[in-house]
């Protein structure tokens, strides 16, 4: 399973989610899954997304995901990050 943490308007995808807590969805891990495919299953398009962190690493959508991973997704209206600070992992 992959633990997907959702923020901002994406919290609405988690039932009974509190704004001051963590909104987490457990999602099945399928062979060949990437961040993009997980987003697709959540009906989240790349244009809607500001930042994605996989296991606390600032990540590209193409990055593979594996069982036990922590994936955090922030919507575009939470786009406040000096991206220059972060290495972007894509492998």
């Amino acid at each position, binding site marked *: 399973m992959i633990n997907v943490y959702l923020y901002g308007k994406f919290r609405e995808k988690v039932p009974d989610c509190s704004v*001051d807590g963590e909104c987490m969805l457990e999602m099945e891990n399928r062979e060949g899954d990437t961040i993009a495919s997980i987003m697709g299953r959540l009906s989240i398009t790349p244009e809607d997304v500001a930042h994605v962190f996989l296991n*606390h690493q600032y990540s590209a959508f193409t990055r593979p995901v594996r069982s036990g991973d922590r994936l955090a997704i922030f919507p575009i209206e939470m786009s406040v*990050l000096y991206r220059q600070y*972060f290495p*972007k992992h894509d492998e």
Partner: protein
Amino acid sequence: MGKFILRVNMSDLSVKKEDVPEKYRLLGGRVLTSTVVADEVNPACHPLGPNNKIVFAPGIVTGTNAPSSGRLSVGAKSPLTGTIKEANAGGIPAQKLARLGIHALIVEGEPKEKGKFFVLKLAQDTAILEEAGELAGKGMYDSNEIIWKKYGEGVGVIGIGPAGEMLMCNAGVSCNDPENGPGRYAGRGGLGAVMGSKGLKAIIIDQKGTGDVVIANRDLFKQGQQKLAKALQEHAVTGQALPAYGTAVLVNILNEAGGLPTRNFSSGRFEGAGKISGEVINEWSKTRGGKVGHACHPGCVIKCSNVVTNPDGSYHCSPVEYETAWSLGANCGIDNMDDVAEMNRICNDVGLDTIEAGATLGVAMEAGILSFGDGKKAIELLKEVGQGTPMGRIIGNGAAFTGRAMGVTRVPVVKGQAMPAYDPRAVKGIGVTYATSTMGADHTAGYTVATEILSVGGKADPLDAAEKGALAKGFQSATIFIDSAGYCLFIAFAILDIPEGFQGMLDTVNGVLGTEYTADDFNRLGAEWLAVERKFNEAAGFTNKDDRLPEFMYYEKLPPHNQVFDVDDEVLDSVHS
């Protein structure tokens, strides 16, 4: 109205109007305060003695209708770091100073009678020093209220709280917001103590009857103003995120990045982050009657400020920013937003920089003076600062002083100034900025990139150390230009990403000054201006060896990434070589 320099001598209580020297004519904001300090202050002087000077300067375009340009720069030799210091703030005073024609206000000397305080009242064609009377000893909330009653609603106030009056090294300089709240601080580096050492409690600015700021080329200025405003409105950061959530949106983001310093920089993750986040502030604006999208000065189109309320809906504090929610929250292990807002309010009242205050409390917690997570005790300690108790005076002098007083070795400072809300072991790029800034650890000093950030896309880093240093210097140069123009640093998001926005910013500067600066000049001037600050620091005794992070960050791994700060010294040294 023509511009002039106003020189106030607190030794003989004289106020003189001087012509603007040609050398200073094209300067403003940070470069102007730093150049005056470099020209007139002996780098070896005691920062709280008669030979230091405190300089106030609006930015180059401040006072015009250029968007988000109401910044006030305050400069002096810092009692916290011993370096040159510029801190800037929003609020309403800067635009009023500019409209009075004040290019820079220089305050020098020291009052003959220690402990006596004055206010400087500025209006069109008048500048009067008078005794502070009942204002002396008052917190900034009471001070601002008294000043608006006595001098008129709407006047600008630049002031210090009891921490500044007691010359504490973490005292900041308050600027009032449009509702007369004192929460817009030129907070860093103890400039409030320098103002206190001059016996100056407040500067009161009445702009009645003034005209517009002189603009050399109005057509060019207007074009630039429109281009920049459009870019700010279109960009996701300045047009959406900052107005909706304020800067505290970063709490959850940095927590996911594993870079949110927690419990005195012992972890990059805080389990209570969600409770002190921008999302909570946004939610409270709907459920408690607070506000997001609050402008700290007229003409700000970004509106990152907010108003946080008590549970009963009454005003509590404005603003609660990311750095503050982190410093008084995660860094102290405190996950109660009402406690964080109360501490923020006390800092605003007593006159403290919230970053330094939270870092200091974290050090005191590590020393066992109070427990991590004990918000109520932390509130009491901050109140002691305003009361001037022995413990309050230790806390009020900042993290480095408190660490020495309490035998703590894990003290997160560079050049004596506390680090802001990005742990440099997880976010190494900002570690380069912390180490090499002319100001001590300062997140606003430049968007420095780190070694690994150049490997975006997972490729090997192709650049050598000297090139990395040059790139880092480039970011610091850009920052000093924006600070000097009088723009809020948040315009950087839009001007770095949108070329028309960048050109618009340049056009406004050229329009005001009648210059023809290009992008090359933007970088060249920034580098030259940084060199002025660097030279002052060298004369004050600082060398490359001071451009380092605290030792524990080189050997103590930070979870969850379990990284140390491993940027080579040669990279740090190359930034200013």
